[in-house]
């Protein structure tokens, strides 16, 4: 008589009430296990398709993320970064406005690094560099090259696996986040830095 006809079952009110109760208990367990999530990301990073490399970084500019998405992804990355950092090289990068930065120990990780290309359009600048946790936030250490035409500045370099925070520095003093970076470190991590993920961030 109450045979369900439609897609969903016809439930008695007390069934519905009970289901709500069960669902509430079930959902209590929703909080993700940050460690487990980081391990998934880590495994994914380790099972990259052979053609992988870091080419996604260039295509990432086409990834028009809205803020919610970017912040969400950032949250995951920061969690992963802390975890990976703790596993790889738990040492502080001195002046970086960063907590729990990933290990950037060149001696152990450089061999596992990947090529990264930074690009910035900076009209009027006479010199542009990249500063980040990979060079101790040194505004002079890593200059970019002017592309020769227009206002483009380019730099290719190898970065160790992991999550890195960085910023561009114009004319030695003006710090500017990467407008094409899909991720930005929020204020908890010192304000307006950008974030780059280098493939193969393996925690093991």
């Amino acid at each position, binding site marked *: 008589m109450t045979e369900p006809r439609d*897609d969903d079952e016809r439930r008695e009110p007390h069934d519905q009430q009970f289901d709500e109760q069960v669902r509430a208990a079930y959902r209590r367990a929703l909080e993700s296990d940050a460690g487990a999530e980081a391990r998934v990301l880590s495994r994914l990073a380790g099972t990259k398709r052979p053609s992988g490399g870091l080419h996604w970084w260039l295509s990432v500019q086409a990834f028009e993320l809205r803020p919610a998405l970017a912040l969400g992804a950032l949250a*995951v990355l920061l969690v992963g970064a802390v975890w990976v950092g703790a596993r790889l090289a738990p040492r502080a990068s001195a002046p970086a406005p960063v907590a729990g930065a990933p290990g950037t120990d060149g001696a152990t990780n450089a061999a596992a690094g990947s090529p990264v290309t930074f690009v910035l359009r900076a009209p009027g600048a006479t010199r542009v560099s990249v500063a980040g946790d990979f060079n101790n936030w040194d505004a002079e250490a890593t200059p970019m090259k002017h592309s020769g035409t227009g206002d483009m500045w380019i730099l290719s370099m190898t970065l160790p696996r992991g999550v890195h925070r960085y910023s561009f520095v114009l004319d030695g003093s003006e710090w500017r986040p990467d407008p094409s970076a899909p*991720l930005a470190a929020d204020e908890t991590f010192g304000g307006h830095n950008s974030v780059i993920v280098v493939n193969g961030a393996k925690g093991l």
Partner: protein
Amino acid sequence: MDSEDVVTDAEVVAQARAGVELARVELVRRYHANCLRFARHLVGDEADAEDCVQETFIRAFAALSKYHERDSFRAWLFQILVHRCRTAAARRTRHRERFVNDGQVADRAAVRGGEAHVDAQRHLASALEGLDPEHREAFLLKVGEEMDYAEMARLTGAGVPALKMRVKRARDHVRAHWPGARHD
């Protein structure tokens, strides 16, 4: 759930297919907790659940080209997850272990969330105990994940009438073992 500001799964999947790594990260962020919660309740064993979820994402991303947008990404992902969980369950059975060890789920909740979590988790864990995998699976998909039967049929391979029967029986079982809800 969708609003103007929310990037849809389809958009993110399209980016992931195009090779954008961060899109994969975003999909993990969106569904990892969801998958782990389901696997924990279904498999019972903490480590097995985590393995199932890891395998699920790896397989899903390897097979992303096979995903059709007419299906929800979550349902597609859960299809893989359900199969991973079944495999894990069969493995455990072969090793003559019990299919579930729900104490682990509750204990984990204790670590994470304090007393309220423990109580809720223990109620659910103990009420699910004794349910066979088929019934447990159907019940969790329906009541826990609020999937509709057509979706469930696609991802479990079972027919809708069978699923309805499983959910009903499972509900009766859980209700009978649910503290404070034994009598209406």
